Structures are given as C-alpha cells and as structure tokens.
C-alpha cells in the first residue's frame, strides 16, 4: 500500500470518526402509540383496591415473579403487573417460564430463582421439604380467613404459610347443549344419554374424558376412597376397597362411551369438534370451546349411585421462595405484589369473567357477578377436596397413573392394578 492510499484511508477514517461524535440517531415514535398510551392511563385509577392493602413502609424494591400462562392469558397478567408497578413504589418484573417445575428446581437452589412464582399448590410439601420456600406468616399483612378454608389450608405446610392463594380449579361436567337438553343429576341419567348418542362408526362419542390421576380423582374418591390421608390408617388409600370400587365404577360406566385413546388430545378434540355429548374437563378448556364455536354449558359432576363425586382441586397460589428469606426490599416488593394480587376483588372478578378463573376470596364465592360457567366450576370446587401437598404424594402420582391407564386399557383388573401400585408406592416411600 503506498503512501497516498494510506493517507486517503486515514483521512476518511478521521472524518468518519469526527462526524460520528456529532451524529445522533433517534427512533421516531410510532405515531399511533401515543394515542393508545393516553387511553390506558385512565383505567388504572379506577381503583376500588383500597382498605386492607396497607402499604408497607420501607425502601422500594425490585422483585422477579415467574408464571406459566397460555399465550392468550399473558397480556392480562402483564397488565396486572403494570398496574401494580404504577401504583406502588416497587418494581415487579414478570417472566413467562415454559417449564416451571424444572426451572424452579434448578434455579432456586442455585440462588437464581424468583422472589415468587405462580403454580398449583401441589408443590407446597415437596418444595418446603427441599428448602425452596420460606415461611412469611410473621410478615403477612393479610388475614387468611378471607379465603375459603380449602384455599387457606392449601398454602400452609406444617403451620408455615408459604404462599397466598389466588384461584381454584377443578374439573366439571361440560355438555353440548345441541345434543343434551339439561345437565344430568346422576350418573345413571348421564349414561342413558350417552348410550343413545354413542356411535363410533359414525364418529359420535358419548364422552370426551382425558384420563389421568387428577381428572379421575372424583370417582376414585366418590365412595369413600382416598389417595393419601395422613390421619387415617393406612395412610395410603389407593388399594382400599372403596378406591377400587371407584375405579371399577369409572371403567364400567365411562369407558364404553369414550374414544379409545385416553390422553388429553383426542378426548378433548372429540367434544371440541362437536362430536361428543359430554366432556369432563377444567376451566382452561373453555377458551378452546369458544374458539371452535361449540354450544356448551358447565355443570357440576353428576352423582353416582351410593356415592358423591369428590374431585381433587388445585389452588393456584403465589409461592414465597427462599429468595424472600431475609427482609430485603426485594422480599417486601414481592410480598406487596402477592398480597395486592390476591386481595384485589376487581382483579379476581375480571379474571373470572375473562378467563374463567375461580376466585377463592370468601366474598366472591357464589357471587352473582361471576359468569355462569365459573359458578358451575365453583360448585364443583365445593364438591371436591384439595390435592394433598405432602411430599409423599409425589411418589403416588406415577404409580397411580400406570395403574389407571392399565385398567382403562383393559390389560389388568382395577383391583390388581391398584394393589401393584400400592406396593410400588410403599417401596418407594422407604
């Protein structure tokens, strides 16, 4: 490279550098965004959130909250967080996590976890035992008795309050109003309708019912059976006569009217396509039905002869993680957010209306402001019992799943399947 070239390049470089210092680039705001912003401002100040959320004192903190929500539900959650951020001195940042169990299991012990996360209450025992959660009963600013008993129980483990509940869920009966006139009160009524309608040759099924321990718990426990009862003897109730009777009832009465693939996809689709008379499913199912344009109504589960259905209910709660151990601003921020979220009646009603979430605030249970489907699910929750969150349950789920699926596939009799499961569970408890 000769000198002239070198000088030329130097010159260019120099000019560019000089100019760069003087140049500023700024992104033009999207002209439409400004208008939207001003509209949103007025919504937040509607606040009927008021009296019991006493504002805590102390420095402003930043907290991380994790949750797992369907794409359609995330905007509502993000809006709620924004609302809180506007009103409070704290800043909450939310993240949608796709595999919550795995992520919390690896992140929390490594100190990388959130202050709080949103999940069903079944992890309360397990995570407490592993040291992932922390008891905040001393710092709580809300009273637990404003929640339903079941919800209040669910968030405690051995007396420690490790979180606060914000919603309940369970499965109920959904029926296609084009096919079925009114909700059946008893299982026999329901079977009669299914018998009429079921015609697999022509693609018509009586019932679309995903089979797993959670979904079928209603019937297994309908005749007095139980999975785990720490106060009873034996603690493990899966092989007791009453539970066996429940499983047999389930297989005999429902299996003949269902599609042969018992996992969630095919069962849910059968009803969602309008090809089944009944479905047993939870509130999350309703948005799919709405999309597909099925005419449906929700009812509580019908009674079997000689028993009463007792489904497992899940309580969605915000857990207090180990990150909230110390009284740091972050912990206060997390707690303030959780307390605000669970006590805000406006929010609960809005979520009930939009997403079918069942509120656990005593004031709202059975309230007329809830939409019909939510009321029906709420009644189903009333029928049920919360899933035990004791760590021993963790060993029960896999064996039960095998036993139930095997019975449904017809490969084994319910009694021997449950016996095998019970043995396996007892082995693993040691």
């Amino acid at each position, binding site marked *: 490279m000769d000198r002239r070239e070198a000088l030329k390049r130097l010159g260019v470089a120099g000019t560019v550098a000089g100019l760069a210092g003087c140049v500023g680039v700024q992104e033009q705001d999207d002209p439409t965004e400004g208008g939207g912003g001003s509209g949103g401002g007025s919504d937040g100040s509607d606040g009927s959130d008021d009296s019991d959320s006493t504002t805590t004192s102390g420095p402003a903190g930043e907290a991380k909250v994790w949750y797992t929500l369907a794409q359609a539900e995330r905007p509502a959650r993000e809006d709620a967080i924004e609302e809180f951020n506007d009103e409070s001195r704290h800043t909450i940042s939310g993240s949608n996590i796709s595999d919550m169990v795995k992520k919390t299991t690896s992140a929390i012990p490594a100190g990388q976890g959130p202050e709080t996360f949103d999940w069903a209450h079944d992890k309360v025992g397990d995570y407490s035992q592993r040291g992932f959660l922390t008891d905040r009963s001393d710092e709580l600013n809300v009273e637990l008795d404003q929640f339903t008993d079941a919800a209040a129980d669910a968030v405690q483990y051995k007396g420690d309050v490790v979180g606060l509940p914000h919603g309940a869920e369970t499965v109920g009966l959904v029926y296609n109003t084009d096919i079925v006139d009114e909700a059946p009160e008893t299982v026999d009524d329901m079977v009669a309708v299914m018998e009429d309608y079921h015609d697999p040759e022509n693609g018509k099924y009586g019932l679309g019912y995903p089979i797993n321990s959670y979904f079928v718990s209603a019937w297994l426990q309908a005749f007095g059976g139980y999975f785990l009862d720490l106060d009873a003897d034996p603690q493990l109730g899966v092989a007791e006569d009453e539970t066996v009777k429940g499983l047999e009832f389930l297989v005999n009465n429902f299996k003949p009217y269902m*599609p042969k*693939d018992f996992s969630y996809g095919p069962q849910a689709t059968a009803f969602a396509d309008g090809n089944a008379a009944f479905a047993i499913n939870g509130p999350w199912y309703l948005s799919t039905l709405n999309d597909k344009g099925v005419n449906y109504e929700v009812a509580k589960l019908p009674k079997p002869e000689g028993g009463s259905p007792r489904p497992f209910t899940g309580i969605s709660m915000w857990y207090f993680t180990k990150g909230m151990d110390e009284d740091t601003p972050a912990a206060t921020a997390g707690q303030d957010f959780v307390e605000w979220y669970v006590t805000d009646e406006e929010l609960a009603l809005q979520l009930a209306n939009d997403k079918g979430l069942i509120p656990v605030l005593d004031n709202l249970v059975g309230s007329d402001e809830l939409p019909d489907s939510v009321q029906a699910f709420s009644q189903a929750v009333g029928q049920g019992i919360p899933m035990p969150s004791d760590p021993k349950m963790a060993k029960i789920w896999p064996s039960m799943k095998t036993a139930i699926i095997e019975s449904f596939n017809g*490969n084994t009799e319910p009694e021997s399947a449950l016996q095998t499961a019970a043995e396996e569970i007892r082995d693993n408890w040691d």
Partner: protein
Amino acid sequence: MNTFSRVARRLETIPYLEKSDLSLLFVLPGLFVFSAFMLFPVLYIVGISFTNAQPANLFAGEGVVAILTFGEASYVGLENYIGVLTDPRFWNSFGVTWLYVATSVVMKLVFSIGMALVVTSDRVRGRRLMRSFIILPMGLPAIFTITVWRGIFSSANFGLANQLLGAFGITTVSWLTERWPAFFAYNVTEAWLAYPFMVIITVSALQDVSEELHEAAKVDGAGHLARFRHVTLPSIKRPVLFATILTSAASFQQFLIPFVFNTGGPARQNELLILYGYQEAFSFSDYGRGAAISLIAVAFIGTFMWINVKRGKLADGVKEA
C-alpha cells in the same frame, strides 16, 4: 533438537515425519474445550451414582457448592448398581432395547441408503431441491415431531394410522396399548426421525465417489447392481459405517419416543433403557439410581461402539486403509 526449532523448521520439512507427536497439538484444543465443559458433569454423575441422592437431601445444603458436593446425600457404595442389576425390569428393558436397536437400525439403513441413492441418481431431475426437502424433519425439534407421530398412531378410531387402515378395510389397531404394535410404532417413528442424518452422510459419501471408477466399471461391462456392489459400496463404506454405529447408539439411547407415546408401553413392557433410568430418577426421585442406570447404559453402548469401530477399522489412519 529442541521443540522450538523443530516447530520453526516444520514449514520447510517434509510432512511425513516418523515421530510427529506435535500433531497432537492439533487435537488438543478440541479435547481441552470438551473436557472443560463435560469433565466435571461426567465426574458428577459418576459420583452421584454412588450416593443415595434424593431431592430431599441433595439440595439440603446452602448454596451452589453444596449441590456440587452432593448436599447431604450419603455414600452407599455399589448399592445402586446392585439394585439395578438385580431388578428384573432392568433386564426386560435391556432386552427390549437391544431388540429395538436391531430392528430400527436395519430399517434405517435400508431406508436411508435407498433414499440417498434415489436422490443422487442422475436420472432424477430437481434432486437438489428434493434433498433439501427431505432434510426438513431434522430441522424440527424432535419432541415436536414425536408428538405429531403420536397423533398419527393414536389408538382412537380417528387416529390417522387407523383411518388409513380403515381405507383398506382393516379394523383399528390399538397402537399404543398393546406391546408389539407399540414397538412397531416406535420403529417407524425412529426411522423417520433418523433418516435425515444418515441420508446427509450417505449423500455426501456418494458424491465423493469418483466418476472415473464408475466409467471404468461400465467399460468393463458391469451392470447397475455390480457397479453398486463393487464401486459404490466400498467407497462409501467408512462414513456410512460410522453413521450406522452412531445411529445405533441413538436408537439405544432413545428416550423421547417411548416417553411421549405411552411412557414405555403397556405396563412398562416397552420401556427402553434410558426411559427406565428416567423413571427411577425423576418419577421416583432417586437420582443416584438414575445416574447408575445411565452409566450402565453408557458402558454398554460404549463397548458396542468400540467393538464395531475396531471391526470396521475405522480408527485406522488413511495410510492403513
């Protein structure tokens, strides 16, 4: 001569030295980077397999270092290994897995080589485009395609496979609730998932075959089949053999397919080895045992691969070929 001057002279000397340990330098960076990342995790797994680690005791300590030293889990010696080797389920798993490897590898080989030949044949137009399309399954995440295949093999009357059978008048098969239909379903899905890998390798190998050899053979009057056997096959032997070994290892370690389809078949009969390990570790929360199973699996497949590499003389350098 000291090492430095030897390195300096390298630029001028003949490549083929009798004692050229310096070439080790070429390999070291890769080896080093790999070890840096995988060495500790591997040691960790070996360590954990000798403990009775469970979620309750593994995470009991404070902070990350505690996890790295296994928390409060205690040393149990060979208990995990003995427990595994005396478990009849383990042997069932073991047997089924080897059977699965045998059947799926045969299927994969035949299908892939056939496919590769078709898309490199001179007579087919637009083969480059076809080749790109058949690679597509590899670009999708495995768990996604496996979920789709599960939908195809659904036991319900409206499952796609059943509808296809119905078109031919055959009654619906309960694919996933019976042992051997499920096994068949696993094989088909495995073949579909693995063929892009083998096809890529075979296609590259086929295109490396010298045209001149083919011409020479044609001049000698060799027909298609003879040319295939004597010209094509020997030239593609090494990469294809290597791919086969790897693909058998992949079959051996298959986890997602049985997991998503029906968690190991009716009553865990079709539980392939890694799924068995997963059940122990995750469902029953016995990390130590799960790790022991994984290591046993690695030992077996490692031996298998070692034997085959030796037999296929793949480890030989080019001069000994």
